[in-house]
């Protein structure tokens, strides 16, 4: 079971901040996960396409595009622009 985390406005669009989801063998990269989510929820798919979205796998930043591998035990976070201070 992978854990997906959506921060900021992405949680509103995803319909929740957290989601536990088994990753089928067809979802082996971040891009494949994004494509899967876009099929379910086109607004979320579009939001995750925006260039300022960042992803972290197990709390380490990972490139959102390309074939960064993910596995069924991962915590996968999608983050809109950060704003501390």
């Amino acid at each position: 079971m992978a854990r997906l985390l959506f921060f900021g406005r992405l949680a509103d669009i995803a319909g929740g901040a957290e989601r536990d989801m088994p990753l089928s063998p067809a979802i082996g990269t971040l891009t494949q996960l994004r494509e899967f989510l876009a099929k379910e929820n086109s607004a979320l798919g579009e939001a995750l396409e925006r260039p300022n979205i960042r992803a972290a796998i197990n709390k380490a930043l990972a490139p959102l595009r390309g074939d960064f591998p993910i596995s069924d035990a991962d915590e996968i976070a999608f983050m809109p622009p950060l704003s501390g201070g």
Partner: protein
Amino acid sequence: MIRVQAEPFDLAEAFTLQAGRTDVGGLACFIGSVRDLTAGANVTALELQHYPGFTEQTIQRIHDEAAARFDILDQLIVHRYGKMFPGDPIVLVSTISTHREAAFDGARFVMDALKTGAPFWKKEVGPDGERWIEPRSEDYAASARWVDVMAAEGQDS
């Protein structure tokens, strides 16, 4: 030291860094607070979301980068999350150094880095509802400035 917490913090913590020390020439500190008006919109509350673990780890990295770049003796970064109201302090940054230049530079670098690099997401609550807010273009420019400064000084490795 860095801390991320829901509880309010004591502003006087800014000065604990120099307590009992006699080698400190300058302490610079900054307190960022919730304003009742941002970009012309009234604000009744601000909710800061964070990513437990990742947020601390990222702020620790900003802390370590400031320590490496500036001649500071010590620093304290305290950042709140959760629901806050106008007037409430959100963040405290304090640095000490032998001279004022490094103390000021260190504190400002940390603040600039937090603004665009610390994993928090802000939702403003106002009379017209809620809205997520993002860094201003000035904030991105301020962060980028340090990259330029370091490149110009040949210290960026």
